[in-house]
């Protein structure tokens, strides 16, 4: 495969940062199809349009997901990328790999594909970029038999669930994110590998409201750790911070001298619900007003900790901007117990309530968040059997109509029309 002139891409090699163009050129020394990626991308930059097309009958036997078909629309010019399919691999919970596993996957990918990877795609999978249709089955066979490695989800499937590293390393985790993520991955194997829904559906699990996997922005079903009771306060440690004995934010901002720690300015003044104050040298929190934003805990981790009655908040319906605008998930269930002893029964119940409804009511290619928007949050809350609370309200109503349900009106909406006509002649 010949090299192509790539003056536009070459610009991206300038500057102090790593360059994917340099990486691709290096890879092309052993995988000549990479020259054609560069050639086709240069053409796209020139034409200002993508030259990839998607779709077709790409997959491995028995699976309706995990492989994304990709073809060049200029295959004669760039035969190396005529077929250039993407393979998604289910990542381990919390993305902990043994190095020999990564080496094994890379060896297989050198053998069957372009050698290019993307660690990790935004869904969470380890993404292998670029192989031919003929190589898919042998690659899949070796991945499953040698590496014990499954594919991830794609299309209208449940996408590979992903989680933060949770209790394995993080003191703030309010539930075992990895256990829940792994359990649901195994429980919903069929939904991950075969199309089940009107459109994609994503689970993401964060152990606390810092939300390191951005579940609230990227998943249809976000499980975000929280607590019910009071933030635990170690008043001696609060004094320690005030006296400069401990660096704030665990020392994260110590690359510059920001001056002495000021609890009023840096913690109390930044509390979004203004529910903190000092009484003498004691820190006080009105926990009924605390919105669990984590700010104070992040700044003074030695002094403050999440409460002990821990569980998760369920937010539903985030999505990226593809069809409509981007949208954050809506807080739906303020507190749910996350219990491994009953195989996370409470979580499974909520998921299936949503699925049963969305599979019926959702339109093709409509994310659940868009379905909720279309039918309105009150209808969705009813499906979820959740009583509305002030936190469900986004803004004061601007619609002057009040809708009553049958059961809220004495006698319901049933009436005897003939009786009515007697009093109100037509």
């Amino acid at each position: 495969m010949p090299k192509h002139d790539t003056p536009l891409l070459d610009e991206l090699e300038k500057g102090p940062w790593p360059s994917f163009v340099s990486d691709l050129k290096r890879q092309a020394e052993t995988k000549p199809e990479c020259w054609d990626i560069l050639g086709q991308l240069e053409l796209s930059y020139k034409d200002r349009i993508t030259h990839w097309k998607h779709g077709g009958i790409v997959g491995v036997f028995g699976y309706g997901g995990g492989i994304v078909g990709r073809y060049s629309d200029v295959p004669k010019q760039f035969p190396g990328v005529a077929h250039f399919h993407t393979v998604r691999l289910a990542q381990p919970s919390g993305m902990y790999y043994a190095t020999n596993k990564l080496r094994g996957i890379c060896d297989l990918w050198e053998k069957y594909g372009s050698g290019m990877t993307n660690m990790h795609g935004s869904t969470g999978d380890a993404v292998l970029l670029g192989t031919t249709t003929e190589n898919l089955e042998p690659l899949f066979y070796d991945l499953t038999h040698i590496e014990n490695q499954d594919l991830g989800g794609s299309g209208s499937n449940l996408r590979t669930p992903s989680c933060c590293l949770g209790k394995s390393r993080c003191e703030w985790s309010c539930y075992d994110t990895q256990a829940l993520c792994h359990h649901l991955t195994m429980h919903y194997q069929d939904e991950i590998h075969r199309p089940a829904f009107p459109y994609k559906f994503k689970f993401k699990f964060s152990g606390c409201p810092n939300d390191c996997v951005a579940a609230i922005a990227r998943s249809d079903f976000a499980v975000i750790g929280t607590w019910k009771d009071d933030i635990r306060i170690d008043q001696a440690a609060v004094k320690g911070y005030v006296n400069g004995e401990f660096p704030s934010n665990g020392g994260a901002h110590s690359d510059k001298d920001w001056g002495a720690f000021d609890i009023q300015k840096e913690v109390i003044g930044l509390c979004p619900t203004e529910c903190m104050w000092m009484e003498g040298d004691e820190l006080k929190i009105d926990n009924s007003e605390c919105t669990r934003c984590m700010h104070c805990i992040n700044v003074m981790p030695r002094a403050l900790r999440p409460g002990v009655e821990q569980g998760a908040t369920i937010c539903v319906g985030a999505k990226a901007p593809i069809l409509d605008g981007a949208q954050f998930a809506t807080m739906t269930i303020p507190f749910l117990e996350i219990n491994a002893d009953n195989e996370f029964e409470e979580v499974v119940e909520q998921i299936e309530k949503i699925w049963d409804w969305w599979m019926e009511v959702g339109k093709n290619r409509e994310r659940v968040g868009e379905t909720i928007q279309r039918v309105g949050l009150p209808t969705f809350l009813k499906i979820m059997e959740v009583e509305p609370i002030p936190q469900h309200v986004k803004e004061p109503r601007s619609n002057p109509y009040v809708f009553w349900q049958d059961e809220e009106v004495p006698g319901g909406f049933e009436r005897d029309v003939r009786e009515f006509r007697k009093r109100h002649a037509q």
Partner: protein
Amino acid sequence: MALSKEELKAAMIEKATKAPKPQLYVKDFYKCDPDTKPRMIKNVANELVKEGELMFWSSGSTTMYARPDRIKNEEARDDAEEHKND
């Protein structure tokens, strides 16, 4: 009353054979039997894939179901179209 599994399978195959477009969303099969739950229809669609009566067809972001022979015909037509000017 819901159709039996065999009746449902037959209705779904007929739908996939006669629909104007060869590729169908799983939702398009719901109408084959309004009394069967959507998750059951999805399971039956996947069984039909296992049996070779249906196949998966991916649009890139959505996965659809189709009768294999209809897709083959469509691809043959596309190929002929592509090579017309060769």
